[in-house]
């Protein structure tokens, strides 16, 4: 098309981005949460944002970590401090698209759904939404510089302790 807008060449493949996202959700679902912060760059931002706020342009996130230390603190709190019902997550992710790459930062969007199973054995749709990720290469490996989880299920069932 003659009206095409010039964009920076995409040098990272969707396959690579999907591999990162698949490894990320399987880390959570397999309860290897101590490894979860390793999916992020040292300088990182992680937010879990109700769609209600995203649509209104309001800044509140229910989880807001702006350092790798804060990510680790979330997991230590989950293991040692917080009181909640034991549960499992199962993430399904799909429709990953690379929206652009600029100055080494890849922007990608992915749909996700999280099923939650409590010890009563019933599995419920717990949280659905989209990941809006900014991804960078750290020592050759892709890492999240920014991960926004914007969730449709803005009425949270009881509480949220495990990261999305």
């Amino acid at each position, binding site marked *: 098309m003659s009206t095409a807008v010039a964009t920076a060449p995409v040098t990272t493949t969707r396959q690579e981005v999907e591999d990162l996202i698949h490894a990320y959700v399987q880390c959570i679902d397999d309860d290897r949460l101590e490894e979860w912060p390793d999916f992020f760059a040292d300088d990182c931002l992680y937010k879990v944002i109700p769609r*209600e706020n995203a649509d209104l342009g309001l800044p509140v996130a229910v*989880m807001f970590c702006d350092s*790798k*230390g804060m990510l680790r603190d979330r997991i230590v709190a989950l293991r040692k401090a917080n*009181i909640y019902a034991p549960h499992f997550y199962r993430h399904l992710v799909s429709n990953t698209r690379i929206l652009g790459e600029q100055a080494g930062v890849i922007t990608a969007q992915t749909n996700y759904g999280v099923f939650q199973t409590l010890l009563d054995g019933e599995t419920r749709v717990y949280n659905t939404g989209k990941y809006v990720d900014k991804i960078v290469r750290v020592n050759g490996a892709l890492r999240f510089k920014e991960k926004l989880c914007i969730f449709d299920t803005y009425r*949270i069932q*009881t509480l949220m302790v495990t990261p999305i």
Partner: protein
Amino acid sequence: MDARVKRTGGLIWPEEGVNSAVPYGVFTEQAVYDEEQARIFRGPTWNFIGLAAEVPNPGDYKATFVGDTPIVMTRDEKGDIHAWVNRCAHRGALVCRELRGNNAAGTYTCVYHQWSFDARGDLVGVPFRRGLGGKGGYPADFDTKQHGLRKLRVENYHGAVFATFDDAMPGFQDYLGADGAVDQHLRRVLEGRDIEVIGHARQYIPSNWKFYAENTKDPYHASLLHLFHMTFGLYRSSQVGGVKITGGWHTVLFSRSGTDSEEAISETKDSQLRTYQADSYTLADPSLLKGRKGEWGDDVTLVIMSLMPNLVIQQIQNTLAVRQIVPKGRDAFELVWTYFGYKTDDEELRNIRLKQINLIGPAGLISMEDGESSVICQQAVVRDQNDWSCIEMGGRDVKDADHLVTETTIRAFWDEYRQLMGY
């Protein structure tokens, strides 16, 4: 005759006039729930429906609930706030189907037959009123003035909006209580402030709403359930603080961080509580706890106000939020969080508020545990409705305390509850 009061569904209050023992049936019986809707939420109470800052402009509206009755809060073209039941006067359909928005036309039209109402709830338009081609139409004596929406009385109290179904209710300030203790704390965070809503969060908790009402009036649990409170000294029962009760069942808990006595800390250590790990539990990034001291010109670091029947308003460190309790049946409620700051916030203070929300909300490192405690109570009271809880910390009476080792505020709740419900 048995002096105990036996009422709805065979429920027996353990002893007449007692607030320290509550039969579990109040948390489980449908008949009790239905009576609460009539006698409490639609009775002689002022119910929180939103912040005025949620409807800042003429034409703005917000859909919410009083008890489980759907209502809409509106702001009219003159700037006045109104509330009406969200149920068309024609055939009972929802008039407003959005959570919030702006209605520039100023009318609210039911989609079913397009009856339209103004922001005050008055009927202003009825299609085919005279019929079509001389056929049909409403009777000659049909009077639109008789078919408005059911209106609630509304008061805007320093930016917090309350509504009542009871036309005979005294004003909101009277309802808060004459001696002003709760009022004073409420005005501390609201009066003269330009409030700015910074976000919302919602939780659906499978528990009777009263377990949460008890929880937010309970200074006893906070040291014992919440490790973050206890370990980091955000709140401890050993701190300087207290509880105040006004208007029967409105309560305020307040405390000051860093005021624990050596003796109290020593006693705390000796009791080897799960939640006290001050020597071993640390944060990799302590910026979470970096607040701004003295924002309100005093050293109070935690205030939980519980304004019955449906509002909790909090200052915890620098976070500000209203929590609206919306009952959804005898065994579920929705908790609607609206976080706010002030328009005068500098960037650093705003970021402090946003970061501290990690502590307070559905995913709050502290407050998530209140959701869980409500659930485990509901799960356990499924049977034995005439057994009762024991609410005796700090005595069996209802009075203010200059410490936090008490459940007197919970007893205040049950005292007023019994009177409204006739137990």
